[in-house]
């Protein structure tokens, strides 16, 4: 061969960024984020709380009391570390697994349950939460994020649009289009790819010849980073820097977090034993984001078993209350559905509204 690819070995440039290793030791002191002890404890509280929420959600689903649910355990550092770097007016465009980010941004728990139960109120973000509801179509939110970010830039806002997808999402055309648009307009967007190794069952190695997803940023002409997605400090730090670049007018960032979902893809019948081994599960469990952060905080004297139990009890109690509140929500009606389709009802729906008013008054 006369010509050698100029980017041969490019993946080696994308070394995984880690601050806190599996043993709970800081391995990159210089990169340590500027977080107070209270912040560190709050991060831990949120991760523990979210793990309990995941366990309770799975149990509720099995009892037939929840509906659609995509388990989150294993991904807490990726989800909550990135959300912790946001300001209240930043805009989140989540995928279907990214409900925890919405909750910590201010979506009340009972609404998260209503989302699972298929009630539109679960998608109705409160006024102070700038977010779309979880996207079901893989990657559709990525082009939208470019638009939100461009809009923010035009409005002169000092905010970012942050969007989440998985490794599967990085195969979609919308991924390339959305990230490229944001790059072309130097829009303040952060694209997070939570690489949990599987698009439902298809391993990441079968999805692309690229060794990393982060390296795809090179093609789009924007900064890209590969981060240990089980290390909440590394995720926080990389996102916080991406946010800083974005609001300073330096454009978007692509971030790949290496993570793992312990549970199935969703609770609708996926069986991970068909495509994962127990060895693989236990290897990743050793990297657990909560375990290593607990060690770190305990060494600093900021965390204890007692404290953790307290958080878990509180979580269970709040979940119970939220489920009760969700139970009280009146079932969504077709007339309501008709009324929120358009601002001005078209003639066919006006007619159908009458029909369903009668049907639903019976």
């Amino acid at each position, binding site marked *: 061969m006369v010509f050698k690819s100029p980017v041969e070995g490019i993946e080696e440039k994308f070394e995984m960024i880690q601050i806190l290793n599996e043993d709970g030791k800081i391995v990159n002191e210089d990169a340590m984020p500027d977080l107070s002890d209270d912040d560190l404890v709050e991060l831990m509280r949120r991760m523990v709380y979210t793990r309990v929420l995941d366990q309770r959600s799975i149990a509720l689903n099995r009892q037939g009391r929840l509906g659609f649910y995509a388990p989150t355990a294993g991904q807490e550092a990726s989800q909550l570390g990135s959300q912790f770097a946001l300001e209240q007016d930043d805009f989140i465009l989540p995928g279907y697994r990214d409900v925890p980010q919405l909750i910590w941004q201010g979506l009340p728990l009972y609404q998260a349950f209503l989302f699972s139960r298929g009630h539109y109120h679960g*998608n109705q973000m409160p006024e102070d939460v700038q977010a779309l509801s979880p996207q079901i179509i893989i990657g559709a939110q990525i082009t*939208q994020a470019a638009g939100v970010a461009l809009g923010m830039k*035009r409005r002169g806002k000092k905010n970012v649009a942050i969007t989440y997808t998985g490794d599967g999402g990085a195969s979609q055309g919308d991924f390339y289009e959305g990230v490229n648009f944001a790059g072309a307009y130097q829009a303040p967007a952060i694209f997070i790819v939570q690489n949990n190794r599987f698009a439902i069952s298809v391993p990441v190695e079968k999805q692309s010849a690229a060794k990393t997803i982060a390296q795809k940023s090179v093609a789009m002409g924007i900064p890209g980073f590969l981060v240990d997605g089980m290390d909440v400090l590394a995720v926080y730090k990389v996102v916080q820097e991406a946010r800083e670049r974005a609001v300073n007018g330096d454009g978007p960032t692509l971030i790949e977090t290496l993570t793992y979902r312990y549970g199935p893809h969703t609770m609708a019948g996926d069986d991970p034993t068909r495509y994962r081994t127990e060895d693989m599960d236990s290897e990743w469990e050793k990297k657990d984001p909560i375990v290593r952060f607990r060690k770190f905080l305990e060494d600093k004297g900021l965390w204890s078993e007692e404290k953790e139990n307290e958080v878990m009890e509180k979580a269970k109690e709040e979940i119970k209350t939220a489920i009760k509140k969700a139970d009280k929500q009146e079932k969504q009606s077709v007339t309501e559905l008709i009324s929120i389709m358009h601002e001005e009802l078209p003639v066919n729906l006006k007619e159908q509204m009458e029909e369903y008013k009668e049907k639903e008054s019976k």
Partner: protein
Amino acid sequence: MAEMTMIQAITDALRTELKNDDNVLVFGEDVGQNGGVFRATEGLQDEFGEERVFDTPLAESGIIGMSVGLSTQGYRPVPEIQFFGFVFEAMDAVVGQSARMRYRSGGRWHAPITIRSPFGGGVHTPELHADSLEGFMTQAPGLRVVIPSGPYDAKGLLISSIRNNDPVIFLEHMKLYRSFREEVPEDEYTIDLDKANVVRKGTDMTLVAYGAMVHSSIKAAEELEEEGISCEVIDLRTVSPIDIDTILESVKKTNRAVVVQEAQRQAGVAAGIVAEIQERAILHLEAPVFRVTAPDTVYPFSQAEEVWLPDHQDIKEKVKESMNF
């Protein structure tokens, strides 16, 4: 008043709304410096700046997805799909996303997007430029689909579409862009969406059409008049939703109807109208409601276009079939 072609009327409508509302953004492939491949956005970037009128990367899904995002920031996007055959690249962004924005968010967000796009046959384009794809769009709840038949309507309907707070697909028949001029007020005016327009009065037959087929229908009606058949011609203007009341009022008077569309026969706008008429006015009918459509093939390469496209002769024949039923 000025004499304008439809393309000039469209530019004029865009200019009017860019002036009226700072939130209006006009963008798409080649719409900036180049003024669009049909010059629909000619001069607008110079007048309003690159912040308001701008080029996008060549990616339809990206363009419409970005429009959804811009909507959340209070903008009123007016993206262009360069030719409507390219909308397949953006089907999720249009039908799966824009159309559902208000419902999906429980009203927290909405998508005041007007997607403009040229379509329609008879101008010898390559594949997937001329197809009539409005039928796909009319099956999507949450969208309005508007198709003007001339310059005056184009301006008033486009302004109304842009001001509407929900997504509108605004389809511009290429053959109408420069084929004739019409008096178009230079001041702003709106034409109601969701309302059909009776463009010709008649007593024996109701012809329902939209876009370029309005003109074929009028031509057929003029020739039929000489043969003693009086046709009323209804221009739908909005093809989703259908203004069924205007159609029924006419059919109850004429007792006959032929529905004309340039699109293929299966499913589609005409099929829906036929169903509505028979459900609501069957006892008023003296004959089945007929359709004039293209055959159920893909849109042909340009050599077969002329025969493939329905024309006024086809309409005349169908009218006579109905009269003789």
